[in-house]
């Protein structure tokens, strides 16, 4: 099946302009609220309630990958692909208890880098920053490429134009409104995503009922309904462990912890994770419908948009367009804001200019937002065919941080050298598994090795950490 634009360029541009103006106007308006200091800009005044906190977690975790990759998984590997992608919600849910502990231990904390530096020292911080830098750039690239691919497949926009529009919009409202704008727009975006996905799913299954899909798959692709499919088994736990690595280490989620009220932080992560799980189930099932209909795609990551447009006509294309536009901007704004916080706090303030004023710190964060957007554009300029190849590569790295982070929060005897060796050895073994076995199992091997190193190192050479050291003044 040849991918052709299903949405008239005029309608697509109208949607882009409408939502771009809305996001930017709201972002600028919300950014004017509050005290205007660095904490306000970076962490929305540390006073976010349950509804906003849950919505921002869900919206940030619904990425371009969720709407483009989950259907690809369903299409290529069947039920296991779909369900294993949904297991990525475990990352948010399992982080909930850790979030509560972080909130208690670090009342003045700003970033995940703060924690690693105070808990394990400068060298561990350096290793951690390298891992998070590679992951963040990979994540930004997949979102940027997803933006270009989506707008091109749906409306015939030039790949680069689509990418520039989405990154530009997210950058503008993040730049002017900071974390408050990010969280506010995330709330609207999460509601949009949930409602529109429900509409797409209901309309799709009314035209092509589940029993018919099942009957066709039994005849043509019975292996895709087999829960013991080898390729499916390989990715089953990888998604769960990969997502834990992403959430446990990345400042997107740590910044939400610091921004939320202590009383709501744990509940919001559980609710956000559960709400998120419904999204890959819905989009993944669309991939199964495509398979049942015997459709073939020149680029498998276009399964969802092309299917929706094919099944539901112009309305379906417009709905998917809005869903993915909201998904991409809500993730990109979070990435830009939280990574800017990390660079401004950990590198500019803690490393380069400890004497910097509050206003200078805020300015550094704003400059970094722009710089990151430019770097993302440059790195994403050459288009890759499958977003999965970029994504799974970073899984080998981030999964190695799961045990060092969790042990560092709960175990006073967690050894700092063990944490360093765990992150390095886990990353190396994960990358070897990525190359030699399959990209799908990189996170499994990475977590396994880092867990082993962390446990053995901390039991054999226990340390005595004073938790009060984490109460570092801002």
């Amino acid at each position: 099946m040849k991918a052709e634009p299903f949405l008239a360029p005029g309608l697509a541009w109208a949607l882009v302009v409408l939502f771009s103006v809305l996001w930017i106007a709201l972002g600028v308006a919300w950014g004017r609220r509050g005290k205007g200091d660095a904490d306000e800009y970076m962490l929305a005044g540390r006073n976010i309630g349950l509804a906003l906190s849950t919505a921002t977690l869900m919206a940030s975790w619904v990425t371009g990958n969720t709407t483009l990759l989950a259907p690809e998984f369903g299409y290529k590997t069947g039920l296991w692909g779909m369900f294993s992608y949904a297991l990525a919600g475990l990352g948010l849910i399992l982080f909930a208890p850790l979030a509560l502990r972080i909130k208690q231990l670090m009342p003045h904390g700003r970033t995940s880098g703060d924690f690693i530096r105070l808990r394990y020292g400068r060298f561990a911080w350096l290793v951690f920053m390298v891992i998070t830098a590679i992951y963040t750039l990979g994540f930004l690239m997949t979102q940027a490429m997803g933006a270009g691919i989506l707008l091109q497949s749906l409306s015939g926009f030039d790949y680069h134009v689509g990418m520039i529009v989405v990154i530009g919009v997210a950058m503008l409202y993040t730049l002017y409104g900071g974390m408050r704008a990010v969280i506010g727009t995330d709330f609207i975006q999460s509601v949009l995503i949930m409602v529109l996905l429900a509409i797409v799913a209901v309309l799709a299954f009314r035209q092509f009922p589940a029993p018919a899909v099942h009957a066709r798959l039994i005849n043509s692709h019975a292996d895709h309904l087999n829960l013991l499919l080898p390729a499916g088994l390989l990715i089953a736990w990888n998604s769960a462990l990969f997502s834990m690595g992403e959430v446990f280490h990345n400042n997107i989620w740590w910044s939400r912890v610091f921004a939320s009220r202590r009383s709501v932080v744990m509940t919001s992560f559980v609710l956000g994770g559960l709400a998120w799980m419904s999204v890959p189930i819905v989009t993944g099932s669309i991939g199964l419908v495509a398979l049942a209909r015997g459709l073939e795609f020149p680029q498998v990551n276009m399964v969802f948009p092309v299917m929706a447009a094919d099944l539901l006509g112009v309305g379906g294309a417009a709905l998917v367009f809005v869903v993915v536009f909201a998904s991409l901007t809500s993730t990109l704004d979070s990435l830009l804001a939280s990574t800017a916080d990390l660079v401004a706090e950990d590198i500019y303030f803690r490393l380069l200019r400890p004497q910097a004023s509050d206003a200078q710190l805020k300015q550094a964060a704003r400059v970094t937002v722009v710089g990151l957007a430019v770097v993302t554009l440059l790195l994403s300029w050459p288009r890759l065919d499958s977003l999965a190849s970029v994504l799974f590569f970073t899984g080998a790295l981030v999964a190695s941080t799961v045990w060092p982070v969790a042990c560092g929060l709960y175990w006073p005897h967690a050894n700092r050298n063990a944490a360093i060796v765990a992150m390095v050895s886990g990353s190396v073994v994960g990358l070897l598994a990525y190359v030699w076995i399959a990209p799908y199992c990189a996170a499994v091997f990475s977590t396994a090795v880092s867990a082993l190193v962390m446990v053995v190192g901390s039991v054999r050479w226990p340390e005595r950490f004073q938790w009060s050291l984490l109460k570092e003044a801002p």
Partner: protein
Amino acid sequence: MLPEASRLVLDEVLWSRLIFAIGAVVTAATIALVLQGHFTWLGREPFDEG
């Protein structure tokens, strides 16, 4: 004796199940680590050195 192609498929299945088992054990251990840590500190003073 199995034909060559059948043995390869069998190896692939066994290899997949081994990775699946490792993944299940690691995931379960990680969940246990977090839950045990959470319940250990639940109700205690967060900076308790004891």
